[in-house]
């Protein structure tokens, strides 16, 4: 068994140490990019989702427009606009903005953050609006103010309801991050493209990277399953 496994690697010219290091640095970039964009996206989307449920249209409408735009256009197009589009603005190279935009990483991060923030806002808004009326009425009956009601009753319930949909968003974000490679970032897919181009071996290069994405996805699914088991325990049947 072990010998058969080793013989698989015996005469391969592609998966040598330099290539594996290339994949590894791609893996690190992917994790950084996805983790940061999800984290920042989450922090932005929570207040946006609360404000989105506001009855005041001056608060409500701009957020609706933001969400509408970022959900209504492909992430690839958003990335192109932020990466190539901004560089074409005359004089931008002389402003402080260029410190951020001249590297490929930050324009890409901005595009990912805005995109995931839009989707997450919509997920949270749905979860907040699905709060049973009875819970709100009961909270009111206890004399809770709007802020306390939001903090103690609505948000904890909404987070639970949003979890399955949010887990999906995290996985989609991981997969969507593969388009970072079109703006010269060497993420996992970028590494696979480099290796494909060097060895003319599309199957090996991309299958390997697909396997890594698969492992990452299953890890995420496992983590979210554990979290769901814990915080959604009350929804499970007793037996």
């Amino acid at each position, binding site marked *: 068994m072990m010998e058969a496994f080793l013989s698989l690697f015996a005469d391969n010219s592609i998966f040598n140490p330099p290539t594996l290091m290339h994949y590894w640095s791609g893996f690190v970039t992917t994790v950084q990019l996805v983790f940061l964009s999800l984290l920042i996206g989450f922090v932005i989307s929570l207040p946006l989702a609360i404000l989105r449920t506001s009855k005041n249209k001056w608060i409500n409408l701009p957020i609706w427009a933001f969400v509408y735009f970022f959900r209504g256009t492909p992430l690839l197009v958003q990335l192109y606009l932020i990466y*190539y589009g901004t*560089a*074409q603005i005359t004089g931008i*190279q002389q402003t402080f903005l*260029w410190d951020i935009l*001249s590297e*490929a990483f930050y324009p890409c991060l901005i595009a990912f953050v805005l995109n995931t923030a839009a989707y997450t806002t919509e997920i949270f808004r749905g979860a907040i609006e699905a709060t049973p009326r009875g819970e709100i009425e009961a909270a009111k009956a206890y004399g809770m103010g709007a802020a306390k009601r939001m903090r103690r009753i609505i948000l904890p319930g909404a987070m639970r309801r949003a979890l399955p949909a949010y887990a999906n968003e995290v996985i989609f974000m991981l997969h969507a991050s593969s388009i970072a490679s*079109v703006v*010269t970032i*060497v993420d996992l897919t970028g590494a696979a*493209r*480099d290796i*494909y*181009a*060097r060895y003319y071996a599309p199957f090996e290069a991309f299958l390997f990277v697909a396997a890594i994405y698969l492992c990452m996805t299953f890890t995420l699914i496992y983590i979210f399953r554990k979290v769901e088991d814990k915080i959604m325990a009350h929804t499970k049947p007793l037996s």
Partner: protein
Amino acid sequence: MKKLSLLMGCILAASSSIGFAADKLKLAVDVPYEPFEYKAPDGTLTGFEIDLGNAVCAELKAECEWVIQAWDGIIPGLLARKYDVIFSSMSITPERAEKVLFSEGYYNTPSAWFGKKGTDLDVTDKAAFKGLRVGVQRGTVQDDYVTKDIGADTVEIKRYTTADDLVLDLTGGRLDLVFLDFPVGESTILKDENYQSVGDTMQVGGEGVGAAFRKRDKDLAEKFNAALKKLKEDGTYDEIMNKYFSYSIKI
């Protein structure tokens, strides 16, 4: 008797014309591919490869005929004996070499560095590149050269899928230098007067473009190689090249 001699005459004429046809070498080109092969306003074929092909034929003392053939059927046409040689900017690749027999390469487009006007850099000195952001097209011979001969520890290498994106990032200011096929850079970057090529053009590997023959025509390929070699040495090649190019494509 008169009838018989007429018949004999016809047979002789026919057989001589058959013999004639056997000496005639047919070369296939896909037109237009300027400046390698295209039609002049009066309809005659002209271009670098046409002139070079004619020079080779003169060297071989063979009579040549040009056959125009669309690119996607150019190898099947050769194998079906519609013509004997493909002389149409066909890059030598291992995949094609399985089907056809290639001559030695007879031209290769050079590569060149491009940057902002006023970039002054000795492109033959590796140390001069220290710390620069360099763009290349992924998987090209230029990518190979920068990766192997200059290295990621000297420059920051950014790889692009298309030349368009590469040029956008150069003009956007995300790159200091790009290394491209000279004709590609000439038709894109040099159109903008704020940019220039840096240093001389250079040949960085690749087997270039060769004439293609049927696998069994080894004799013909050898004769071709000898003729090409002679033309490269006696100056005829340079003369033809200088007529169409301002830079060297000789290999």
